[in-house]
């Protein structure tokens, strides 16, 4: 991507896509038997793609846009949790994918875990250490959803990279 206007526009499109995906995900009914609030993290596919193929700062911008959207639509608590989770998980994904050369599945699972860990820390600060009770469930669900989004990205990446080269 050569021109900076194109670059900014592309980042904007990605941010919009991430926001729409998280909005759609919120419309899904909660899965029975799962703790409410457990999510698939579809929009993480976008931030992962941004971290892997576009760059560190566009990826962080996508995470920030998502956090801002949560802040506007779901309140301060949700906004703080989404921003912290998004930024930390994007950082981890970028590190694992670009610097430490992990595979998509490992980076995606680690990103989901980082997302949950950051959210749990915020929840812990806002309420009490009692929320740590949920940690093991979050670890299991995070690993599962992270692996799933990693698989989806594995399918989507080849055509996306072809598009980007144009």
């Amino acid at each position, binding site marked *: 991507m050569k021109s900076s206007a194109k670059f900014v526009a592309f980042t904007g499109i990605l941010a919009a896509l991430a926001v729409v995906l998280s909005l759609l995900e919120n419309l899904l009914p909660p899965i029975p038997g799962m703790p409410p609030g457990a999510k698939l993290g579809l929009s993480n596919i976008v931030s992962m793609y941004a971290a892997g193929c576009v760059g560190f700062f566009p990826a962080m911008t996508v995470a920030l846009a998502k956090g801002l959207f949560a802040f506007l639509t779901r309140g301060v608590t949700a906004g703080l949790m989404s921003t912290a989770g998004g930024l930390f998980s994007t950082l981890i994904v970028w590190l694992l994918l670009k610097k430490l050369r992990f595979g*998509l599945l490992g980076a995606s699972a680690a990103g989901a875990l980082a997302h949950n860990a950051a959210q749990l820390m915020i929840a812990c600060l806002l309420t*009490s250490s009692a929320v740590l009770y949920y940690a*093991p469930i979050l670890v299991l669900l995070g690993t599962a959803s992270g692996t799933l989004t990693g698989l989806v990205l594995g399918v989507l990446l080849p055509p996306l990279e072809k598009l980007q080269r144009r």
Partner: protein
Amino acid sequence: MKSQFPLFRKRDILVFLVAAVLAIAGFLQWIPKSGTPVAVIEQNGKEIRRVELSSITQPETIVLEGEISVTVLLEPGQVSIVHSDCPDQICVNTGALTRPGQSAVCLPARVSVRIVGENNSGIDGMTG
């Protein structure tokens, strides 16, 4: 055409190993701890009430006022969040807490109820 990022590398196993260790360590914390169950109710990180469950003789409701109000019910031997104005009702669905280590949290209202085990009573053990 192949992507520049492989789906799986051997080192990915590291991530899953760490996750497994974390999950197991976390679940081990769920094993009920010994001690006299004492309910601790907190709002905005401040302790509102601390009461030994076995000392409760009749039901008592505590209303925690706030932007989102929460009602906690203390009963002999157990404590539960019975009402919350929050949208997701995770805390209410948690049900009654009876053993040390259990907790119910309402994140939007910043209220938590947990049971800790204390060993300062003169009783060594009890059956019943």
